[in-house]
């Protein structure tokens, strides 16, 4: 794709001796939402960690716009415009909800949380003074998403964002993601194992299996049955 804001090519990665990702290749256009679907242990989280520079990676290229990220430290990558919602939340549990969001805010925001974030997750406003660690599981997940959005990224990586979130908010989230890409220059990569959410949210689908993409299609052509097939072997 020519107007790709985020492009990955030849990405290899793994843990210690064992390679998990094998020459992954994909790109995401501005204002596009891409879903990476795959069963347990197929390498979704590994992919995201490698993209973020949390895992060292074993070669390949990751670009945001024209900028090559491979070789950069994690915070530099974030400053180049990617943001990350890890699987398992990883919120700062001893800090308040407000402070958690503020860690993501750019210096220019001067610690003021944009209204739209609270509009998205009203519960966070109610609980802004509470310690992050005391939130319920789902509330923490919402906080992690808000924290990533606060960095005002060009590319947003969401690793199984619906885990533990109540159905109404999942529906809301899908709507919101679509909303956000309409309003802002942003590309979203989201990983999931269940189809319902991504069918609501994503423009394009990849299926990852044993560290390789085995299926790719745009929403218009997507056959839910086929993907479900991959997901429920």
């Amino acid at each position, binding site marked *: 794709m020519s107007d790709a804001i985020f492009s990955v090519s030849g990405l290899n990665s793994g843990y210690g001796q064992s390679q998990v990702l094998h020459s992954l290749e994909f790109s995401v256009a501005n204002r596009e939402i891409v879903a990476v679907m795959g*069963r*347990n*242990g197929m390498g979704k989280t590994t992919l995201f960690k490698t993209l973020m520079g949390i895992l060292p990676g074993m070669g390949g290229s990751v670009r945001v716009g024209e900028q090559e990220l491979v070789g950069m430290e994690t915070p530099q990558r974030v400053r180049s415009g990617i943001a990350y919602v890890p*699987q*398992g939340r990883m919120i700062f549990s001893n800090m308040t909800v407000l402070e958690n969001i503020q860690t993501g805010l750019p210096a220019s925001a001067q610690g003021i949380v944009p209204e739209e974030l609270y509009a998205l997750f009203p*519960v966070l406003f109610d609980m802004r003074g509470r310690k992050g660690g*005391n*939130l*319920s*599981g*789902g*509330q923490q*997940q*919402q906080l992690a998403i808000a924290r990533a959005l606060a960095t005002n990224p060009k590319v947003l990586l969401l690793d*199984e964002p619906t*885990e*533990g*979130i*109540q*159905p*109404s*908010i*999942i*529906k*809301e989230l899908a709507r919101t993601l679509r909303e956000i890409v309409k309003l802002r220059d942003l590309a979203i990569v989201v990983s999931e*194992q*269940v*189809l319902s959410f991504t069918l609501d949210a994503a423009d394009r689908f990849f299926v990852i299996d044993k560290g390789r993409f085995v299926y790719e299609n745009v929403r218009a052509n997507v056959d839910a049955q086929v993907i*479900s097939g991959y*997901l*429920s*072997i």
Partner: protein
Amino acid sequence: MSLDKSIVLAIEDLTVSFDGFKAVDSLNLYVERNELRVIIGPNGAGKTTVLDLICGKTRSTTGSIRFKDIELTRLPEYRIVQAGVGRKFQTPSIYENLSVYENLELSYPAGRGVMGCLTFKRTETIRERIREIASMIFLDDQMETMAGLLSHGQKQWLEIGMLLIQDPELLMLDEPVAGMSVSEREKTAELLNRISAGRSVIVIEHDMEFVKRIAHKVTVLHQGKLLAEGNMESVQHNPKVVEVYLGH
């Protein structure tokens, strides 16, 4: 007041507050023998907190929790477990540095004291039981694998297995299928249906498909209070539940 014989767990007027915030608010809940109860409710409704209260991780502000005539609110955790209450945590909580076999063995209810541990022997009965449980949780061919190397879903199963081996009368599972793949969810549903025979099970879950497949009865919590209770059908169409939880 004597407990109705068929009621295993009776929660009455249970309240817990954190710095003034009532996470659970005068809750009454009764679970019967052989029942599989699903608790649903919005994020932050107090579901996990209820389980914490039952198993003694959090102490209640007021109210009582009775499990077969035993008052649990003041018992230390390990006594609650020994009384027959097993609990699975929201994130898989297993011993990553031990093998599947050892994980199960440690959970086997024998040799729980210091001396018991020192003189503990792997008898044939124990081995048999471990194998039985392992095959029940689809891990019979992974006995020697380090638990840390299992997939997410397998870890969840292993933790369920660790509870099963204690043969608890009340089993509580917090979001057992979160992060599981579709096929694993199916297998888990099947597993739960199987193990609910002969004991009571409380499950917390947000996946409605899954709930539908397992629930005998559904309780909906909201802001620490009971919002609705009944079979899946009635709850799903309850406008209040749709409003606060399911969404339109």
